[in-house]
């Protein structure tokens, strides 16, 4: 990647789109504090990324960032609600309290009746809902979703994107969704188009800006 200059605003769902290999994954890895940029400056939730190192960075991620993955990455041995509770347990919340809070999130994503199901007993769409509940249970300030609809059929994908838009976007939270599914572009408040390691254009509402 080179010459990237992009803001991810709070209170909006920003879509990061572009063909395979254009640098989307690298960009969200840097934004999520999982990769170090080789050059340039990243300000993450008001903090200079350079100042976040080692255990500080790990704690920062645990407290501020939620993840939704393409393949859900649910732990097969845990029930849906236990999976949703994992980020809280990672932060040291007691298991009982974590599961209680996870129950609320499971209701939020419409899976109150499947809390005791294991991932293998859920459909792809349901698993992704659990993953969304898991990402939100910690009340993160940044939510990073990597191709959340890629493993789903069109209808389920649309439902998931609707859900993300409905339950995740809040004034104090930035949401970034990597996708190349143009059927859901209309749900994004802001779309960052990438190509060949560059930001090609940014579509903000009705305005399209080109760097």
């Amino acid at each position: 990647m080179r010459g990237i200059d992009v803001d991810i605003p709070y209170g909006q769902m920003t879509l990061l789109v572009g063909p395979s290999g254009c640098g989307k994954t690298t960009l969200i890895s840097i934004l999520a504090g999982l990769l170090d940029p080789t050059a340039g400056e990243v300000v993450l939730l008001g903090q200079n990324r350079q100042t976040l190192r080692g255990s500080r960075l790990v704690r920062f991620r645990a407290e501020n960032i939620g993840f939704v993955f393409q393949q859900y990455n649910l732990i097969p041995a845990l029930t849906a609600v236990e999976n949703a509770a994992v980020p809280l347990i990672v932060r040291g919340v007691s298991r009982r309290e974590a599961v209680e809070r996870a129950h609320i999130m499971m209701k939020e994503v419409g899976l109150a009746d499947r809390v005791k199901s294991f991932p293998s007993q859920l459909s792809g769409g349901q698993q992704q809902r659990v993953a969304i509940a898991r990402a939100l249970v910690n009340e993160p300030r940044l939510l990073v979703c990597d191709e959340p609809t890629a493993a789903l059929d069109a209808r389920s994908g649309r439902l998931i994107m609707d859900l993300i838009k409905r339950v995740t976007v809040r004034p104090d939270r930035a949401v970034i969704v990597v996708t190349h599914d143009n059927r859901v572009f209309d749900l994004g408040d802001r779309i960052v188009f990438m190509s060949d390691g560059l930001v090609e254009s940014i579509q903000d509402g009705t305005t399209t800006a080109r760097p």
Partner: protein
Amino acid sequence: MNWLAWKMLTGDRTKYLGIVFGVAFGTLLIAQQSSIFVGLMRRTSSQIIDISSADIWVMDRKQRNIDEIRPMPDNRLYQVRGVAGVEWAVRLSKSLVRVRTIDRDSPELNARDGNFTQGILIGVDDASLAGAPLEMLRGNPLDLRRPDGIIIDEDGYKRLFPGQPIQLGKTLDMNDRRAVIVGTCKVTPPFQTFPVIYARYSQAIQFTPRERNSLSFVLAKAAPGQIHQELCQRIEKQTDLKAMTWDAFFWMNIGYFIENTGIPINFGITVTLGFVVGAAIAGQTFYLFTIENLKHWGTLKAMGVTNLRLIGMILFQAGVVGAMGYGIGLGFSALFFEMMERSGQPDLRGMWVPWQVASIAAGAVGLIIVVASLLSLRKVLVLEPAMVFK
């Protein structure tokens, strides 16, 4: 986080049980074979164990174990008694003798019986009966004073009279001499599965083929306050014989068998195989388990789990399977020996899992677990959390 580690571990039951099986298999082989080895080595010194009333064993200077005996003249007893610090000293003979179950009182039986076996004959001091069996099952050690009286160990009795109820008064033939069973006893099972027969010294030398000398050992008791080691040195100096404390003789005897037989090598190979196979099964399965869970480890890393906590989780998992496998393996080993003991089968009677063997097995399991964990830890620690997006 241990809860999460436990859930991840037990979630894949096939692998979880595979790892536990590997550790249990290794433990079972290590503990069982090592225990049998220890038991066999103890058996080589069974008569030393059973004759614990004496502090010091005196024997020919060149003697290397309890079985290869060079008999001494009887006057050696008096030389030992003459050493300052010896409270008492008595004679002891030990020899192999052919025992026949011909019943002189019922000659009609002889035609169809006449079974024979080798027996270990212990001749104890006529006066004090020092060296006589300590644990009598039937009869009394004093009955050795009865004419032709012998005491036989109960397993030996069953070998001589298979399927017959134990009955005192039965007669045996040893070196064409009549011997009457006046008691049965329990002994530490000997290395060879021969019956152990006790008789008075003067009687015992009649049961064995004649030799110029018949004194195998002099058993000596140290006077109160005597340092046994110093007393041994005094005896050796004054008599030109070998004098050893009870435990020194015990270990010398075991050392002889370890050095001069193939037993340690054979058992060593089996134990090593148990370790290698256990380590291979457990190590490989645990490694595969970790590899298959890399995605989840990566997810946890992305969520903010530190490497230190991941190490803790993996070590916890390894510890759990190690403890379970060890418990099962050791339990089965103990059960095996318990069943052997209860079955009355004399071949493995009197064997158990000594705490030292249990500790060694624990160490071996620990090593297996550490190796398995290290292989897995390496993979997890170098894992980039960004891989969750790949």
